[in-house]
């Protein structure tokens, strides 16, 4: 069984980084819809993918990944919203872990919105 001792050791290492992080308000927020509609259409793997990629690529000081309830567009779930400070919110629809990875690479790192996956750009007629 995994012990709390291990957690204690991690904490010792982490303590110094916390204050630094709390002061940073220039975060880009990435929000995944996680109500019944989102969960049923596959939001959990999308959320897991996004947060593990942000961690792997050491972007946690710039990007925070969180979850929310029903956004009200259930037919387009899983939905990922990207809110960059000072910019308009971008809504990505019908996400998969693969598409989410593309959004992270091209939009969050590269700075170019992936138009074909957005609510306004996707072919949903």
């Amino acid at each position, binding site marked *: 069984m995994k012990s*709390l001792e291990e957690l204690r050791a991690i904490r010792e290492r982490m303590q110094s980084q916390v204050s630094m992080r709390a002061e940073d308000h220039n975060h880009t927020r990435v929000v995944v819809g*996680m109500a019944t509609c989102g969960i*049923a259409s596959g939001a*959990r793997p999308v959320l897991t993918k996004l947060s593990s990629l942000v961690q792997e690529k050491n972007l946690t000081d710039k990007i*925070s990944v969180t*979850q929310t309830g029903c956004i009200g567009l259930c037919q387009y779930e899983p939905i990922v919203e990207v809110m960059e400070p000072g910019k308009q919110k971008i809504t990505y629809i019908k996400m998969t872990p693969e598409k989410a990875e593309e959004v992270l690479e091209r939009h969050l790192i590269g700075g170019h919105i992936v138009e074909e996956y957005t609510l306004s750009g996707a072919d949903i007629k």
Partner: protein
Amino acid sequence: MPEISLNVLDVAENSTRAGASLVTITVDADISSDKLTVIIDDNGCGMTPEQTAQVTDPFFTSRTTRKVGLGVPFFKLAAESTGGSFTITSTPGVGTTVTAVFVLSHIDRMPLGDISATIHTLVVYHPETDFVYRYRYNDSSFTLDTREFRQVLGDVPFDMPEISAYIMDYLNENKQETDGGAVY
């Protein structure tokens, strides 16, 4: 919903919305009695008897974004279609308890799915809520208690990469030791 664990994620989400400070989730698989019991118990705002009676109706919700509330009806149907049972009890100001019993061997029982990922998601993304998770498989069991984690961590948040990874490992390794990697 293709997995029981996704129902758990969805229904436990209601508990956090109800302002619960503590949510206790029990997953108990007992092969000899052929039962899988899932209990989600919270100390949130609770519901009146009228609301409790309505909550399994898909056309009832307290939310305003849509006119349907499918989370609880899905969970109920998933349990009852295996010959199991579903109950929900609630007291305003005290909390709510949802109990779903599945018949393990029934052909219509959906798989448990990635229950560790569900618990991890709940714990990491609800920093204001404490969770107790009890997992039992026949005679073995383990417990995760975020109050214990919090005591060790102080103000270090759960969503720091190293802590989040520790919680995932804690869940996966302890589950493996408890059920020997059984898939059901």
